[in-house]
């Protein structure tokens, strides 16, 4: 049968983005090791609710590691102590009886706390809106097999496209830099033939927006790559740098950034 454990949680509680937050200690008792981390929090919240106390707000949705909504820093690590998974995929068997678990929200100026452990990640949406697309309207496109794309390129583009936009890269980076996220999108389109026409505008527009959102600057520590639940590679950042610098130094006259 499942092993059970008692845990001490130190949870960041904050009413909204205008108030100051603080850590609150909550006991989580009789937690089964085959529960997911979020199910453990569900139980904590059910207990709080029964006691008439406000449950801990945290973002989550699909609970299968793909929507990118869940976002907890657990004992100093985005998405918890294991590599390559999201918080919702973390199970309690990664913890032991009597352990103290510190749970914090993503911390970045560009990700203000909305309540408790939930942060506002709309900065990511705005970066995508700045250029993370191919300018095609519905209809009037060529047959899907018109352009052959070498499997190697298609696979590499896919690897970049697997980013779920959770923001763990920002949370992990000591500088709260969003470069892994931004570079993944820029890379996907830079690799594919469909992305070529706007390749250099895109790199500039997205980098500009990223800077405007107040993310920090990459210092190549590699923390983002290590913590990324989808294994997005640092080479994406190198590619983004190359795209951006090429745009700035060699393609300036070709570039007409849309406003």
């Amino acid at each position, binding site marked *: 049968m499942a092993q059970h454990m008692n845990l001490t949680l130190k949870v960041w509680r904050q009413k909204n983005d205008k108030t100051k937050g603080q850590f609150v200690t909550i006991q989580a008792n009789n937690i089964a090791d085959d529960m997911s981390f979020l199910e453990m929090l569900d139980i904590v919240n059910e207990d709080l609710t029964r006691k008439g106390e406000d449950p801990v707000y945290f973002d989550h949705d699909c609970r299968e590691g793909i929507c990118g909504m869940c976002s907890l820093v657990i004992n100093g690590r985005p998405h918890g102590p294991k590599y390559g998974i999201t918080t919702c995929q973390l199970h309690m068997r990664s913890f032991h009886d009597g352990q103290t678990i510190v749970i914090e929200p993503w911390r970045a100026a560009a990700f203000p706390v909305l309540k408790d452990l939930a942060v506002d990640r709309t900065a990511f949406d705005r970066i995508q809106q700045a250029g993370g697309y191919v300018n095609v309207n519905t209809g009037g496109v060529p047959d899907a097999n018109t352009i052959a794309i070498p499997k190697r390129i298609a696979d590499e583009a896919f690897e970049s496209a697997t980013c779920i936009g959770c923001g763990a890269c920002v949370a992990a980076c000591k*500088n709260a*830099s969003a470069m892994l996220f931004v570079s993944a999108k820029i890379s996907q389109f830079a690799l594919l033939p469909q992305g070529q026409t706007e390749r250099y505008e895109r790199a500039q527009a997205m980098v*500009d927006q990223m800077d405007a959102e107040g993310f920090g600057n990459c210092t190549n520590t590699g923390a983002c790559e290590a913590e990324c639940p989808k294994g997005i590679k640092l080479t994406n950042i190198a590619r*983004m740098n190359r795209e951006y610098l090429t745009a700035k130094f060699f393609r300036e006259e070709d570039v007409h950034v849309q406003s």
Partner: protein
Amino acid sequence: MSNSKPVLSSSIGRKLIMSLTGIFLCTFLIVHLIGNLQLFKDDAGYAFNNYAYLMTHFAPIKVVSYLLYASIIIHAIYALVLTLKNRAARPIAYAQNGGKANSKWNSRNMGILGTVILVFLATHMNNFWWKYHNDQTPYIEYSKDLATGVVTSKEISASEFHDYQVTVVNNVEVTKARDLYKQVDFAFQNIGLVIFYVIAMIALAFHLIHGFQSAFQSLGFAHKKYVPLIKGLSVWLFGVIIPIGFALMPLYFYFVK
């Protein structure tokens, strides 16, 4: 035309500056180490002092040296600006930080390592560059028998001579020069300074192990074959050979000479 932000005020532009100045400083280190290997020659500093004169008086090298000073200053200032901006990007720090699980210590502490190196540079420049340029070094006269190649030397005083002079009399080449070698020897008799130099070289090693390859990443260099080469250079050349080479100099003068 583009209405995008100017490159140097962008995050990637700042990275570009850091990487270009960094790589330039790295290449200087190679030259500096090779030149300074002459300190290990047992010739009373004949080769080294000649080399020192060349480095300070040959016009193209002077130009490069000014670029070098500029690089150091720009590298440091941008580092400071970036650090401040990065701090602002995370106004509330984590109560618990698991950085060691996802990144190397030196990559997260380039600022501290860089500061150690900057303090070292100030000390180093004061000890040698400043003294050399401000006439605070002793002088030496070498007599080289052009037939046999044997060099003898004697100390001379400043009043007998000014700056640098080479004359050939009776097939003997007489060189009068500032004795920076002596100054090095003198400085490295101070055990405190020797320890500081060794510590600074350790800091340099860790700074460059991350810094050199990081600079190429910033420049957008990503190649299956060459990136491992650059990473290898980062560790073995800039992390081991160069810092050890430099660290051996104070140790040599303290323990051997």
